[in-house]
């Protein structure tokens, strides 16, 4: 079963990656200057508190034992405890994660809707003015610092032109019951159109900040990939059949370019989680990124490392999903299970 084997290979790789990340985080914890128990208990902790934390974390044990305990705690979902809120990091992150997901989904949708048509047109009219201009726009869009873009958009759209709200997630007094943690979805579920549009207005600028570099990268890869397929031997027979350029692009080049593009989109969506640190902070949105940034600001090292672990897991899962989708799109791999089964 080639198909299942490839997927299980990816799974093993994901587990290995997470183990590598866990080890890295453990090493970082050990490298924190100063007394580890003191850091874990927080700057204001009493000697008794520090001692109890040291006991809980098993800091008196040999390092190997500590490492194993650390891995075991991770397996149980214990990402450590925030010194500031005294709550488990996982609980805090779970509460703000939907908000980040909402942002990433909208950003990916906008980015895809922009990048795909642009790349298709650019590849069809290769070498024409549109192609040249979009290429330079894409390079520029990909080279924008996200946090600066966020600040500038926020300032002009929010402060100067007053088109969008400046920061936050919904207007004061407009709030739907919290079911999913995503303000837009909650409003929709409650049937509250005003609330939905309000939450959308808050979401749109941050989503654009993510969508611009996302679209730029997807555009560049997709265009290059389309041109690659169009220049390949495969296209000569298609042309010889009498196919128009648009047919060649849409029916042949696009499906063949989808495989690398979906992989890249997985990587980029994973990367957005990192970018969220900057963008959510600027727009004062609840989310994984702003949690991380706050923890950094409050010098809550344990929370930072717990969140790093959490984001690492999230990114690996997004990549895994993208890999599996890629495998399913490819008949050479998808068909394998049936063929082998038939023999």
């Amino acid at each position, binding site marked *: 079963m080639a198909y299942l084997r490839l997927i299980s290979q990816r799974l093993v790789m994901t587990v290995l990656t997470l183990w590598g990340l866990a080890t890295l985080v453990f090493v970082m914890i050990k490298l924190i200057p100063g007394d580890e128990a003191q850091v874990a208990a927080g700057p204001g902790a009493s000697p008794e508190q520090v001692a109890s934390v040291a006991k809980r974390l098993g800091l008196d044990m040999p390092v190997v034992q500590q490492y194993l305990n650390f891995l075991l705690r991770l397996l149980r979902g214990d990402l450590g405890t925030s010194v500031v809120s005294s709550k488990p990091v996982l609980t805090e992150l779970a509460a703000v994660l939907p908000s980040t997901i909402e942002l990433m989904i909208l950003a990916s949708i906008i980015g895809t809707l922009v990048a795909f048509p642009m790349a298709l047109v650019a590849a069809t009219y290769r070498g024409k003015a549109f192609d040249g201009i979009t290429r330079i726009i894409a390079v520029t869009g990909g080279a924008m610092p996200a946090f600066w873009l966020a600040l500038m958009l926020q300032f002009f759209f929010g402060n100067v032109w007053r088109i969008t709200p400046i920061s936050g997630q919904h207007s004061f007094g407009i709030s739907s019951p919290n079911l999913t943690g995503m303000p837009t979805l909650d409003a929709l579920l409650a049937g509250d159109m005003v609330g939905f549009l309000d939450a959308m207005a808050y979401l749109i600028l941050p989503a654009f900040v993510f969508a611009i570099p996302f679209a730029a990268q997807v555009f560049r890869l997709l265009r290059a990939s389309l041109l690659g397929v169009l220049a390949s031997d495969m296209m000569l027979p298609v042309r010889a059949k009498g196919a128009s350029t648009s047919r060649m692009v849409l029916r042949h080049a696009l499906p063949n370019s989808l495989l690398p593009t979906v992989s890249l989109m997985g990587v980029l969506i994973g990367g957005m989680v990192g970018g969220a640190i900057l963008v959510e902070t600027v727009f004062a949105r609840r989310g994984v990124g702003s949690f991380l940034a706050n923890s*950094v600001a409050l010098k809550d090292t344990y929370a930072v490392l717990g969140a790093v672990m959490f984001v690492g897991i999230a990114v690996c899962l997004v990549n895994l999903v993208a890999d599996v989708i890629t495998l399913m799109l490819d008949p050479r791999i998808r068909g394998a299970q049936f063929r082998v089964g038939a023999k």
Partner: protein
Amino acid sequence: MTLVLPTAAPRRKANFTAYELTVFGVVAALFLLALIGPMIAPADIYTSNMLETLFPPSAEHWLGTDDQGRDIFWRLVAGSRLSLFATVLVVILYSIIGMIVATLATVGPRWVDELLMRITDIGLSLPGLVVSLGIATVLGPSLQSGIIALALTGWPMTARILRTTMRRTMEQPFVEGARILGVSRTRLMLKHVLPNSLDVLIVKWAGDISFTMLILAGLSFIGVGAQPPSPEWGAMISGARGYMSIAWWAVAAPGAAIVINAVAFALLADILQVRRDPSLQA
């Protein structure tokens, strides 16, 4: 039995278009500015002048002044060395790590290759910015921490690309020939394989500088990289953020400086890439 004989490929000369020359010129100018910037900037950009705070752009202060009354234009000029050189340093550092890993993977026994490439894969799938943030937090916030953190997280892509090219170069006839002639492995590596694999990296470097500059500025912006009052551009944005609503230019200008650099290097990377692979040409 057949008559398929090789034909000599016509030699290509390097003719550059006006657009390409412009990009090369801008990149060269940016390097020059980074080199001489701190020398030509006046000394008062490091000291407060409370009589001239938050002046908008004018003939005297081209890009206005910040909350300490310091001239933003000259701070940008002075900070260009920090921003660009720190970025270049990061790229150099992780390229060295990547080269060492790739070389070991190429010359070492199979299990070393296997192990190193697994580690590389793990590194590739981790979110660089987030891990760097963790490392920089542990090391304590400073520009050095940011540089170290990015150097430690940036190398896997270089290692992977280099290893692939090195493997391919190792199979080339001239390397095979040298090996038969008894040239030692190390010498072969240093004299033949590495230099022949480098042209792949040169294209990558331009793109890496663009990308790294953005991340480095991002780290400064969150507060784990360079700290105000440093004229590093990310730190300048971070410092000016609080009073952006009354002096937007104090945020816009350093950001624009980052964009100009990042775009210039990204365009350079694009040009170099198209030269290597003309099928991408518009």
